[in-house]
């Protein structure tokens, strides 16, 4: 099986403190890989470093190319996309404009594929079609998450990285989002899923890494990791509860 992303010995330091140190990670084509771990373990840092938003040391090979030096926009152009925890939508712009800008990296493509992609997004998320003229800041938390996901899909990513897609969402919507993620795999896309909601993440993933205080503590096929007694005790029991607690306190859920 060909690897789409290979991360070796990746270290990110904020000043003298290393947020992640020596992390290795591999994502095969067409697979969902999840990174679980407690709050502050460095999961988001890992994604931001792979995306190029943070300076890092080590090696990142994407689609056979070393991308350590590549700018964020070059990585997006190569099909590496991130839906960050904060969503980073264009709050004062319309839903339609957010989606159009999602296809910005494909602006030189001369056919009508971007228009068709837009229509496909509206079919996938009918709620967004209803609200296409509204400013993104008027959307509910769940709708924002849909918009963030749809905006990233407009770039036709090969590898989609999702940072806490279930954060602040009602359990029913979490299931919908994860089903959507699973359907992306069926279309040949690879997904790197970072979640605090370990139970949900492990249920859709093929392979899992457990990140603790900036290093990989455990890795293996998702089913085996889910069956590991330590993981069950620490993340599936307590982790799920912690996720629910964060749900209630996060401003996204409140708005």
């Amino acid at each position, binding site marked *: 099986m060909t690897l789409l992303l290979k991360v070796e010995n990746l270290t990110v330091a904020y000043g003298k403190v290393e947020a992640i140190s020596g992390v290795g990670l591999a994502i095969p084509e067409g697979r969902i890989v999840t990174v679980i771990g407690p709050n502050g373990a460095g999961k988001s840092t890992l994604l931001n470093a792979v995306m190029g938003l943070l300076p890092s040391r080590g090696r990142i090979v994407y689609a056979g190319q070393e991308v350590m030096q590549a700018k*964020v926009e070059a990585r997006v152009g190569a099909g590496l996309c991130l839906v*960050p925890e904060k969503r980073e939508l264009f709050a004062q712009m319309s839903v339609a404009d957010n989606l159009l800008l999602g296809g910005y990296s494909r602006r030189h493509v001369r056919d009508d594929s971007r228009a068709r992609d837009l229509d496909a997004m509206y079919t996938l998320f009918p709620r967004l079609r209803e609200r296409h003229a509204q400013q993104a800041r008027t959307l509910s938390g769940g709708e924002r998450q849909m918009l963030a996901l749809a905006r990233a899909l407009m770039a036709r990513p090969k590898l989609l990285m999702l940072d806490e897609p279930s954060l602040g969402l009602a359990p029913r919507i979490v299931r919908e989002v994860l089903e959507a993620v699973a359907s992306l795999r069926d279309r040949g896309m690879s997904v790197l899923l970072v979640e605090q909601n370990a139970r949900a993440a492990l249920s859709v993933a093929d392979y899992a890494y457990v990140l603790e205080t900036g290093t990989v503590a455990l890795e293996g096929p998702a089913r085996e990791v889910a069956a590991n007694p330590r993981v069950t005790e620490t993340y599936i029991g307590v982790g799920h509860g912690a996720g629910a607690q964060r749900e209630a306190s996060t401003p996204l859920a409140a708005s």
Partner: protein
Amino acid sequence: MNSIIALLLIQDGLTMGAVYALLALVLVMVFSVTRVILVAQGELVSYGALTMASLQAGHLPGTALIAVAGGVIAAAMELWAYARGPRSRTHLVAAALYVLVPLAVFGLVAALAPQGSGAFVRVLLTLLIVVPLGPILYRVAFQPLASAPVLVLLIVAVALHFVLTGLGLIAFGAEGVRVAPLIDGMLRFGPYFLSAQALFTIAITLALIAALFVFFGSTLSGKALRATAFNEVGARLVGISTTGSGLLAFSLAALIGTVSGILIGSFATIYYDTGFIIGLKGFVAAILGGLGSYPLAAFGAVLVGLLESGSSFFASAFKDVLVFALIIPILMWRSFSAGHAEEEEE
């Protein structure tokens, strides 16, 4: 004061107000995209007027040489980036553009300037000379500081203003110039006269504002520029280059500054350092919108223009003082209503 004088003052006020509005819009745009308060916007205005006047006199404008020198520095920085970092071809292409475009323009101007060309050709040449200075200034002064705090950017912007004023003095000398009006004549309505150039200025300004409106509202590049202004991280995540946005914002600033200079040069005598005062008036207007609102900035600009023409009639010695004093009530009003000025977080 009778109605004829009142009409003249209003005409003056609206004409200058229209130009200030353009400058204010550019200041707001550049600030929101790059967080740079473009103090040197005024120098682009005076460079526009001085270059145009120099071409009218059949000279080779010194700005053409300034652009070549700036281009060489920018190209050297691109080559340095190529040598040190990823060997990306975009650095080489950029370096070539920075050197070749100003050189080509220099050659063209050197060939055409002594012949004494028509007004339209002179406007075109002026734009070709001054507009490339926008991206060059961004590349040299601000691109290396992309993640610096606003205060550092402001300090660099002030320094850039002094450098450009000094270069203006070397290039054009200390004498003031007037640009010949692009359109001569007066329109007569009964006892009232309207200057054709004033109407032309207002028309061009409105057309440019409309063009900016269409650009930002309906084109993907314009939307990308707005997206960068609203949310830089979000913009990078969809593949918008922040460097590209900065270059585009500065190009637009140079374009509008130059046009403003060409227009304003026929109403006022422009010296190498006049641009600063003009830019500052645009800044007063932009402050009215808290450097964030385009309609308020445009409204503020018309207010500044009218206040200026009014005070030049009633108290001409205090003309500039009265305009800049306007900033005090504006700032007081803004700080008392500051709670509403904050953009809400996503």
